[in-house]
């Protein structure tokens, strides 16, 4: 038995003793009338050694947080190699997503590509087609910016109704990281874009290639070629050593293991922008090039994986809001399914095209609630209801579901994913 397991056992024993002694502990919550043995008895961690500094050169979360992991839903896709998993947003706070539990979406698996094997080609309608090594990229001027990456399909399973139980599953195809890298325009400038160049085609080194076309205006604006995220190298599954960061735009375009940037006079209309990432509309035609992710929010707690166990009284409602059009201006929260709304507090820095944390502190009277959040961005766009979106788009657009989420908080504190009239 390991040292940590022994500690766990001793803590359980102490709690059990407390229950037996006083009977004053309801669901383990300590009454003020009986002395708490966790205070009155010296605990092992207050007496013995903890772990030495050389125990963990690169640490993982403490074992009590083992629920804070990526999860997948096997039936969603035909193969785990071209599939998705979900960020545990129900258990996170603030805005920065820990890389180790930030969602993955691959089309032919997470490949291993070393910095020494890495090459980036720029070709097409340029004055000089170029090849860069990883080392070359580190010599361009650097930029540091924080952005959300949201899969176009985030919430896509919910178009037809409430389906999955938990914010991780309904809203967790998203992560938010502080990127360090170089501007795509600085790389393109080295090659020199010819006047006929109107589109940039980007593709990865993996078998799927994930090629996408980006209009030159966006490419020359804020697109980054990133190699650090949240202070360290990209994780393998997030594109190590180099990925594209396309602020505010659907995650599919954030090409990982970026190997080629080509300038063309038109869009390639690749598989990932024809068969996929096009949005079927009620008349049988489909939108293409729906690049921007519109304003969206979700209450992360309470939520189905984060029930209320502490009873009535003070309750923190916390959630995330984001918009591909810029900064979040406001988030409203409703406790009654959208009949009345209260403005929540935006906590921390509000950055454009990045996750924004909101909080609303309430005094819960123990009655059931229908919780909703509604984001507004700096363009004045107000997050619509799912019904408002369906009225325009029908049920088969697959992508870009930014409709308002409802959580039914029951009197017992359990929370369900529901839709309301």
């Amino acid at each position, binding site marked *: 038995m390991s040292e940590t397991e022994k500690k766990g*056992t001793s803590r359980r024993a102490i709690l059990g003793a407390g229950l037996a002694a006083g009977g004053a502990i309801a*669901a*383990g919550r300590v009454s003020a009338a009986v002395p708490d043995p966790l205070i009155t008895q010296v605990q092992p961690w207050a007496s013995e050694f903890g772990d030495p500094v050389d125990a963990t050169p690169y640490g993982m979360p403490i074992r009590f947080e083992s*629920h*804070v992991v990526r*999860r997948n839903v096997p039936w969603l896709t*035909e193969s785990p190699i071209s599939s998705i998993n979900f960020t545990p947003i*129900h258990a996170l706070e603030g805005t920065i997503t820990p890389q180790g539990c930030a969602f993955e979406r691959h*089309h*032919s698996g997470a490949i291993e590509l070393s910095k020494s094997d890495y090459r980036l*080609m*720029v070709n097409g309608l340029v004055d000089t*087609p170029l*090849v*860069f090594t990883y080392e070359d990229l580190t*010599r361009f001027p650097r930029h540091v910016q924080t952005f959300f990456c949201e899969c176009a399909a985030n919430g896509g399973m919910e178009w037809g109704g*409430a*389906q999955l*139980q*938990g914010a*991780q599953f309904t809203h967790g195809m998203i992560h938010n990281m502080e990127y360090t890298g170089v501007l795509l325009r600085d790389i393109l*400038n*080295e090659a*020199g874009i010819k*006047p006929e160049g109107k589109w940039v085609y980007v*593709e990865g080194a993996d*078998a*799927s290639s994930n090629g996408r076309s980006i209009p030159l205006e966006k490419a*020359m604006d804020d697109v980054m070629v990133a190699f650090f995220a949240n202070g360290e190298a990209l994780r393998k599954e997030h594109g190590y050593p180099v990925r594209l960061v396309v602020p505010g735009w659907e995650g599919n375009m954030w090409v990982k293991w970026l*190997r080629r940037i080509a300038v*063309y006079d*038109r869009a*390639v*209309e690749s*598989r990932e922008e*024809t*068969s996929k990432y*096009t949005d*079927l509309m*009620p008349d*049988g035609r*489909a*939108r*293409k090039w729906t690049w921007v992710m519109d304003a969206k929010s979700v209450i992360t707690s309470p939520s189905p994986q984060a*029930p209320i*166990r502490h009873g009535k009284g003070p309750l923190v409602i916390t959630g995330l809001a984001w918009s591909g059009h810029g900064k979040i201006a406001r988030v*409203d929260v409703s406790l*009654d*399914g*959208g*009949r*009345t*709304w209260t403005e929540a507090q935006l906590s921390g820095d509000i950055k454009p095209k990045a996750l924004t944390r909101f909080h609303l502190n309430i005094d819960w009277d123990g009655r059931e609630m229908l919780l909703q959040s509604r984001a*507004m961005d700096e*363009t004045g766009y*107000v997050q619509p209801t799912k019904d408002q979106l369906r009225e325009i788009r029908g049920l*088969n657009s697959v992508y870009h579901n930014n409709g308002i989420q409802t959580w*039914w908080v029951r009197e017992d504190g359990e929370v369900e994913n529901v*839709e*309301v009239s």
Partner: protein
Amino acid sequence: SPVWADKLGLGRPAVPEEIEAWDVVVLPDGRGLPEGSGDVSTGEEVFAEKCAMCHGDFAEGIDNWPVLAGGQGTLTDRRPVKTIGSYWPYLSTVWDYIHRSMPFGAAQTVTPDETYAITAFLLYSNGLVDEDFVLSKENFTEIHLPNENGFYPDDRAEVEYPKFRVEPCMTDCKGEVKITKRAADLKVTPTDPDGRPAGTIPDWFEVA
């Protein structure tokens, strides 16, 4: 050409063999297609050998693997069947995607002639050419897929944003609110051993 800043002099010129190796993209107007050709019956043979174990002998799909043929006229159905024949706009995408990214797990193992042949077979499977059809670089752009005009660029700026960029209601916004759908009814979410949704935050006073 436009210059935004002085060049830094990083990188080195790409040589033609390198560009040829990596730039294998085919555009809707046929640019990027290599010399070559392939007919339906050759395509059927290659497909049987390299593709049919997932996509079926007739490109109809096996189990949950993608369906490549059929579904024409279903795009307004409750459950549309989106295939090459029913949904895809351009044949270039078929050629390009197969050549670069298929077969799944062994990509970049089909030659240009094989890709022409598979593409011809997929046209045949979708009822778009006869069984003696030969697809080549020369006649490639004569082929138009049924849904070529089925797409339009993002129009949210016209159709949605004016509707949603309005001051929202704050009080008395609607009448009685009823629950109309419950995910709990479907029971398709992965669960923890205790039956709760997987990853539910533990009750700290019940775990050690």
